[in-house]
């Protein structure tokens, strides 16, 4: 298992390096300039030039990359141009929000997607199945921000049950602050739960056609035992391997959700940083997201290997 993890880690590093080059190149073709964002509209040209030099933004790209990469190797992601603070600290703070949001969302996704998908599959072909699948498809077709805006309007502004926006850290306000993430995580979960629901249903139906399910039925065990012991576990193999995918989708949609709910997460941070051309932060965040993605995929693989004995841990 360790050898496997090490090998994967090696491949991950190569991917990371490739990603870092892509990110860096990508970011520096973005037109625009962080200087005026810092100084405001009315700053004078020579004031801007001076600051640009002081921040080292007028050096050749390759040199900037090498410096950045060199420091990144030792764990230093540089300083944010905009915040004048270490990128790592800026990201770490945003990461708390985003990781909690992603986790809560995944919990919803699993809690909603898997059981309902299972029910739909078990009632395959009935109106219940069609209804559930239809609703799922509808959920997958709704723009996230639209859902978010209405949720805020209903549950925060009108009913006042939940906070409308923002998220104070649980380390400062206790676990109760998780209520701030309730609406955002539900918003974010809706389309993804729908996809997992449909995936669960589809793979349950696929597995239900397998010969070994027939074998199980022939033994005389009860239908629900057939489902729980034989169908579900095999069906979840497919579902689990889709989690990596879902995570990437989540990161995309989180950008919008965090903007709508004014959450201090890395999704909003990256959009804002792109808009203000805070290069070190963009680089850092994308790198972190890539790492997270790779880690999640690694976990998915490990889980897969754990669930499926055919894939042995070497």
């Amino acid at each position, binding site marked *: 298992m360790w050898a496997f993890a090490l090998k994967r880690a090696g491949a991950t590093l190569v991917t990371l390096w490739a990603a870092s080059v892509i990110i860096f190149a990508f970011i520096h073709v973005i037109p625009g300039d962080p200087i005026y964002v810092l100084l405001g509209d009315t700053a004078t040209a020579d004031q801007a030039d001076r600051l640009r030099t002081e921040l080292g933004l007028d050096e050749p790209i390759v040199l900037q990359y090498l410096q950045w990469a060199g420091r990144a190797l030792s764990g230093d992601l540089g300083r944010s141009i905009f915040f004048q603070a270490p990128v790592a600290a800026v990201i770490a703070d945003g990461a708390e929000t985003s990781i909690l949001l992603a986790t809560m969302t995944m919990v919803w996704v699993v809690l909603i997607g898997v059981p309902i998908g299972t029910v739909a599959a078990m009632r395959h072909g009935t109106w219940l199945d069609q209804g559930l699948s239809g609703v799922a498809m509808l959920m997958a077709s709704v723009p996230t921000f639209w859902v978010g*805006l209405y949720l805020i309007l209903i549950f925060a*502004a009108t009913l006042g049950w939940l906070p409308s926006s923002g998220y104070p850290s649980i380390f400062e306000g206790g676990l109760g602050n998780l209520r701030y993430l309730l609406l955002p995580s539900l918003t974010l979960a809706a389309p993804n739960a729908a996809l997992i629901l449909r995936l669960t249903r589809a793979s349950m139906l696929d597995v239900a056609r397998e010969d070994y399910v027939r074998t199980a039925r022939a033994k005389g065990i009860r239908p629900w035992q057939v489902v729980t012991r034989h169908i579900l576990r095999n069906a979840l193999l497919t579902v689990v391997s889709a989690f990596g995918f879902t995570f990437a*989708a989540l990161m*995309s*949609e989180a*950008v*919008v959700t965090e903007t709508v709910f004014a959450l201090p997460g890395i999704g909003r941070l990256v959009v804002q940083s792109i808009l203000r051309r805070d290069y070190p932060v963009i680089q850092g965040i994308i790198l972190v*997201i890539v790492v997270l993605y790779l880690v999640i995929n690694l976990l998915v693989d490990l889980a897969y290997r754990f669930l499926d004995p055919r894939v042995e841990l070497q």
Partner: protein
Amino acid sequence: MSRASITLWLTPFLARPIALIGLGVLLAMVFAAAFAPWLAPYDPYAIEPMARLMPPDATHWFGTDQFGRDTLSRAIYSARMALLIGAGVVFFALATGIPVGVLSALFPRLGHVLMRIVDVLMAFPSLLLALGLIVILGPSVANSIIAIGAGYMTTTTRIIYGLTLRLRAETYVEAARSMGSGTGWLVFKHILPNLISPLLVQASFVFAFAQLGAASLDFLGLGAPPDIPSWGNMLAESRTFITRASWLLFFPGSLIVLTAFSLNLVGDALRDRLDPRFRDVFSGEG
């Protein structure tokens, strides 16, 4: 297409009234896009600041927006943008995904390298990729298409790669190779024809999700230039009026949902029509 194959394609729809409705909605959309100038009661660009934010009534069925433009007319014209974005994204995703996916599957060494790059790109959240591209290229319809398409290029490539790997192992492909067929022959006579149906399904889903992607970009202010009528723009521009003029959010929002929903329904029906062998290739996908 022969009559037989037309019926073959239609059966999944006939068997499912709801999919038929989806098809109907899409046809209506195409109709609206094609005949927008005749269908729209007003010029979608005409500004009438004295009649801004009027609620729906007999003259303006969908009300007017903050410029006093007719929401219904803009909604009708937006069908054009929806089709353009959808078709553009599908085209972009396929035009890049097919060559990369097919060639990677046929030439394993090249494929190894290309697919790793695709893997790296997949790690980038697609919306961020799109955002970055838009900021680089500047907001325009074409650039929205490229930016959203870039996200779907990777997934499409993966699917095509997977399908082609399977097709490559088919006995009939092997038979053709044993007769000395070149890559071109394989691709055009054996692989592409067999990719058509799964790609049609993939296309319908990409088409659907491109709508949502475009709406998100519009929401973030980085989509098509805001004067161009598109449902996403209409939503984004009017989102502050959620309490003041809710019709401005309701109509375009519903149209996005309806379109994406219909496309998903159609995609679903098409998928059921497909050879079950291809089922699980999609199961990683939305």
